[in-house]
């Protein structure tokens, strides 16, 4: 199978506040096959997403493979609570951008 960017493989890739001090990321696939391909590739593992966002693994508070929704979900602690001075994404809704470029082998 040819490698593909996550932006082409997933149907939904989003990020949003989960409480005032965390941002949660949802990556949802249309079929169990696409979901399993992405999950098994390791390109979206807990360690891989920590590397992508250049944060230590302990900044990831939750990492869940959510089979019923064909989804991978992880949650990061923010560097400061949402809407603090210096924060330009108070809803956390544009933090997913880099995920779209991730290559799934």
């Amino acid at each position, binding site marked *: 199978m040819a490698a593909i960017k996550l932006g082409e493989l997933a149907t939904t890739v989003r990020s949003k*506040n989960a409480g005032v001090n965390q941002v949660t990321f949802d990556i949802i696939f249309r079929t169990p096959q696409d979901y399993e391909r992405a999950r098994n590739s390791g390109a979206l593992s807990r360690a891989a997403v920590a590397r992508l*966002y250049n944060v230590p693994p302990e900044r990831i508070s*939750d990492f869940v493979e959510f089979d019923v929704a064909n989804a991978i979900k992880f949650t990061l602690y923010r560097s400061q609570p949402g809407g603090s001075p210096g924060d*330009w994404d108070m*809803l956390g809704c544009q933090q997913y951008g880099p995920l779209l470029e991730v290559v799934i082998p």
Partner: protein
Amino acid sequence: MPPQQNLRILISTGHLGTSPSAPDSFHAGMATNPDVVVADGGSSDPGPVYLGENIGMGHFAREELELFLTATRKQGIPLIIGSARDAGTNAGVDEFVRIIQELAIEHRIPKFKLGYFYSEVPKEYLHRKFAAGETFMGLGGFPGLTVAEMEQATRVVAVAGVHPFLKLLEAGADVIIAGRCGDINFTAAPCIHAGFPEALAYHMGKMIECASLVAEPYMGKETVIGTITQNDIRITPYHPDQRCTVASAAGHSMYERENPYYEYTLGGMLDMRHCTYAQHDERTCRIAGAQWVPAQDLRVKLEGAKKVGERYMGFVGIRDPHIVRNVEQALEWCRTSVAKRFGKERYELYLHVFGKNGVLKELEPVKESKAHELGIVVEVLGDTPALTEKITDFAVRTFFFARIPGVKGTAGTAATTKLPMRATPGYVWNVNHTMPVADPLELFPTHLTEAGV
């Protein structure tokens, strides 16, 4: 009386007042005679400013309340609004109650019962809790709350469960305006009031809290109706091009939460590990299997915001490719120049570089920007408006005079426009904790009055 077979709840917005509900799907939904209309008036998502400053963010609250009030009174069904005016402060509740009363007279609506409750927590109450040795547990990585930190909060609200809603429904309220409450509770309450299982009631609250975001394709501000029975819940969108599918519903069940399986609220925890999702008809998803685990000890969530300072913002554009490539030097020049001139003052300076990492900051993996121009927002916080404006103006001008070796342009190294603009003061969340309570109603005094003619 035999138990009611089902209860249908209509919702058209995930955040009342931010922009108007789409009228067509709202009226299409209302034409099917739902039993209740609900709307969420607020959230902590837009940041701490609204709680701290005691202001609202939306410009369409009155317009949406008018749509909801006239439609529900015409059909004689309850209207329930959660977290009035964004932060759910007492002033927000009072403003929404006043709007309802004004609209009722304007539209000559026959007399009805208007219930409301407050959520603000007096500081003296919190002092008594501290004195009694109660613990304030931090949420989302916050350390435990200290008295000193609590005292710095401009205002503290508690997040209500279903309890004050149930009390007002039992008293016969036709319209309820709530202070700060959990997003799932203004929907769960009428379901529980009508005798449906708590697990399904809370799960329906979760599924429809953002209206059409539970359906696909992505559309905001469109109407959906949630139907609860003794065995399941069903979600149906009313925009003709939307469907609620297994994928959209299961996907939404994990929305805005750190974990897809558990939802905590005052009174217990909703366990969604064993939920099932099935396509009920072309546009409707059927959901079952959630479990409700009542809490052994009641803990209420508190939210508080403290002021950091006055705030101004200025805007700078960079088009010289040499400066675009070496923008770090320009940023450093700005920071050191401001520190040199204003180092004795208390200030905070933030430089948001759009075209480089303005949104993601240190999380941005793209290190080499391909942008041919950069936009820099200069954000400054200080003790007084005058000083903050002065520092912002100075910081913007440092980009105009930035000393970067090799620059060809000698008539200004940044494009600027207008004067610095005053922004809302800066706040940070400083209370994000839970606290034990003996009675789930003790922080949420309810009131019942009349409106209409």
